[in-house]
């Protein structure tokens, strides 16, 4: 059957592995999306001490979505209501897209919605369904990763480091890029500043910068392709995780990085996913404490 063949591109877990992974994955994504939504709410309130920020966040109009995701998370902690939790979380994300962000919705919200819909449609507590659920989630991730790389190549903005140059020139947020640029590029791009009519050329001369710029799309396409071939699957997944970690050093979109890495981890044994989830939960807690200004502030979204 062609559907089986297509799904088999993502590999097939044993019943034991699928059993260990599926519920943990569903639980974690609901937890992570809940944390992310609360962080988004706190981003909309004035700063101050932790109690002030928390109080403002808890009473902000946007917190309705966060409260609903909190209910979803509570439901996700129980086996019987886990699928309901995922469906509720999917409804929340859909609500955010439909009533708040569309048409300017960030792509990662669409990815969240697709994954949650998958998890709601396939029972993580049923043998064959959870195997199919994991296959579906892996293939969705592979498609996203492949196109992230292909589109970079199609637009041609990475062959001469053009995109890196613009990001570095326009915003201090990507200041870490200076580690891969030579002094000439740092000076020239600093003088160029952000986008303006006639401004440019925004391209790199630094060998390391050019190397990494071209490695970016090659790695994305290569890892995606490698993950659908049985022999290279695990290696490609490990390489993808390394690549995501490297990207996050510069982009610092940590919540998305955690979510996407969790999807990649579905290709690896359950024990690795378990260890990673522990680390990711801690990271989420740190992000919340940072947003409450209990820890020193740093940009991570």
């Amino acid at each position: 059957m062609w559907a089986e063949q297509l799904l088999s591109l993502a590999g097939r877990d044993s019943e034991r592995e699928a059993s260990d992974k599926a519920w943990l994955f569903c639980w974690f994504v609901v937890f992570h999306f809940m944390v992310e939504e609360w962080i988004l709410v706190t981003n909309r309130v004035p700063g101050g001490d932790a109690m002030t920020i928390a109080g403002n966040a808890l009473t902000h109009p946007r917190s309705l979505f966060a409260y609903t995701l909190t209910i979803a998370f509570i439901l996700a902690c129980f086996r019987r209501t886990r699928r309901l939790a995922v469906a509720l979380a999917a409804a929340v994300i859909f609500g955010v897209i439909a009533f708040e962000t569309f048409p300017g919705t960030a792509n990662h919200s669409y990815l969240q919605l697709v994954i949650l819909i998958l998890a709601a449609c396939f029972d993580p507590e049923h043998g064959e369904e959870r195997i199919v659920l994991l296959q579906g989630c892996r293939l969705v991730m592979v498609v996203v990763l492949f196109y992230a790389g292909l589109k970079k190549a199609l637009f041609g903005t990475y062959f001469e480091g053009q995109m890196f140059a613009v990001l570095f020139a326009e915003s201090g947020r990507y200041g870490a890029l200076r580690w891969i640029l030579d002094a000439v590029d740092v000076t020239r791009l600093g003088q160029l500043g952000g986008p303006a009519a006639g401004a440019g050329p925004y391209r790199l001369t630094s060998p390391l910068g050019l190397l990494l710029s071209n490695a970016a799309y090659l790695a994305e396409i290569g890892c995606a392709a490698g993950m659908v071939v049985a022999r290279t699957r695990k290696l490609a997944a490990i390489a993808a995780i390394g690549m995501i970690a490297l990207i996050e050093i510069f982009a610092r979109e940590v919540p998305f990085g955690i979510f996407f890495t969790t999807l990649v981890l579905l290709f690896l044994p359950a024990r690795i996913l378990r260890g990673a989830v522990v680390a990711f939960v801690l990271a989420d807690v740190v992000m919340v404490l940072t947003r409450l200004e209990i820890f020193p502030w740093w940009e991570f979204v």
Partner: protein
Amino acid sequence: MRGRGRFLQQKKRLLAVGLVLFAIWPLVQHVLVMRYDVNPWKLAGWAMYCLPTPKPRLWIHTLGPQATEISWETESPELRDAVGRFGQRLWVFGGLAGTPARVAEMVLADRPEVAGIEVTATRLVFEPTTAVFRTQTRTWTFARDAAD
């Protein structure tokens, strides 16, 4: 059990069809980007960080021998909201965003002495080959008779 098995087979087929559509859509989105200036960062094309896409800026001028600029930023919240919404649509949908007819309607309703208005949107477009930004301008004209 047999019923569940058949249902699962149907769900697998649906999933497979969904995955194929999910894999095709970014190509469709790419065509929309290239032909209609749709924002590559949006609409699930997975082209984030592929092309700098600054937001457009909007200006409103009255028509006539003494054309003046209307500072929409200092106008009513309703007009600011309408301009903001159109600007957002323009940023995401590009050439598919439609026209700022609603904005024109509101301005002309507030200014009965004005014969018409012109809405101008400028945006910076990045050219990968030259690595330079250039300006792209779009203009919509609304005369009072036509708008009414």
